[in-house]
């Protein structure tokens, strides 16, 4: 249809709002399917990082001092490729930070376990030193305390021993007064 083609061409030529400074062809963009594949791939990476973080969370317990939050991008909505990349990078960074912190704490715990062994072998060489379960990365409230037998006499005589605490307080709290216990 030559008449229609001429009409369209003249319509474009007559337009004054078109400038020659911009590109005459549209900027190259990835086809939508490629974008979707890229997002699917990023979602897979995020899923794997989340699994690793979850495993680390379980193995880090009962240690404290870790930051697990990554921060919300803002939703609920479909995230763009750029946002998914940002999230992936943030998760990877969080994972690296937690691994580094866990490694640092593991070194300290290893040193504390060594200290505990030497306290058991020679309590007099570690006077008044306390090592708790938390110091060696174990759950519970137990602690080992190097202290003299028979108080000041043991201190003067050098009779040191390692005392092990009896553990956590009872979950039910302190024992009720005798009058209350009788009424129960």
């Amino acid at each position, binding site marked *: 249809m030559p008449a229609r083609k001429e009409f369209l061409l003249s319509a474009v030529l007559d337009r004054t709002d078109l400038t020659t400074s911009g590109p005459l062809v549209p900027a190259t963009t990835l086809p939508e399917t490629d974008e979707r594949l890229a997002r699917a791939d990023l979602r897979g990476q995020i899923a794997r990082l989340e699994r690793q973080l979850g*495993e680390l969370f379980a193995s880090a317990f009962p240690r404290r001092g870790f930051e697990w939050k990554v*921060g*919300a991008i803002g939703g609920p909505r479909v995230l763009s490729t750029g946002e998914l990349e940002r999230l992936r990078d943030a998760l990877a960074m969080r994972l690296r930070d937690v691994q580094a912190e866990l490694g640092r704490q593991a070194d300290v715990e290893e040193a504390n376990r060594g200290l505990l062994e030497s306290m058991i072998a020679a309590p007099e060489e570690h006077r008044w030193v306390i090592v708790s379960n938390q110091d060696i990365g174990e759950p519970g409230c137990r602690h080992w305390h190097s202290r003299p037998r028979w108080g000041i006499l043991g201190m003067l005589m050098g009779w040191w021993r390692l005392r092990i605490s009896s553990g956590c307080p009872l979950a039910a709290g302190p024992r009720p007064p005798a009058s209350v216990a009788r009424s129960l």
Partner: protein
Amino acid sequence: MSDPPAVDETRPEVGWIAAELQQEFPGLALMQLVVERGSGRSTKEVKERLKLLSDRFSGGQAINMRHQPIPWAYRVFYRHIGLDPDEQRTPVEELALDRMKHGGFRSHNLLDDALTIAIVESGVAVRAFDADRVSGPLGIRPTAAGEQLEGRPGELPPGTLVVADAERPLSLLFGALAQGRGVSPKTKRTLLIAIQVGGVPAIAVEEALWLAASVLRG
């Protein structure tokens, strides 16, 4: 008042998912089931069941929850839609945290207790609406410009993922409910919905709905 949703009480019905979301999240699905009753006081049996569930649910389970398949799938999906599951907890993690804080799953009312049992047993996200206050089967879609949640100030940003009926958004996906669409003391019929995400087997979703419905029916 709108027409009751066309769902069968005996078996869950699959809800609709907007086409663009199906392409982005192939595992995303919504299943729904109507129960011909509202909430009310929890029975002694339900409270006993919650207590048994509390005894079975230990701290170790809560710690290891993040890398169990179903809770992990919800955490991942939260990430995929821009939520941080450590700030806005997934339903099962929220209940686990509540269990740890209070030493047990607390009883609130029959519907909440039914949802607690279903979520903790299955790990699946289940929630409830007043079946007589929704119009047609529910689904998940992004919002258009100018839409809002009833009773909430301001418009929702376009593209916000919502659970919606044929007419309006009923709640944010895993978030706030529109006013007047949830279950109230006046509710006569309850619409239970379960949101399935990639990695969650359909059988777990059906089990979650069946569990919640069976507790509600008594």
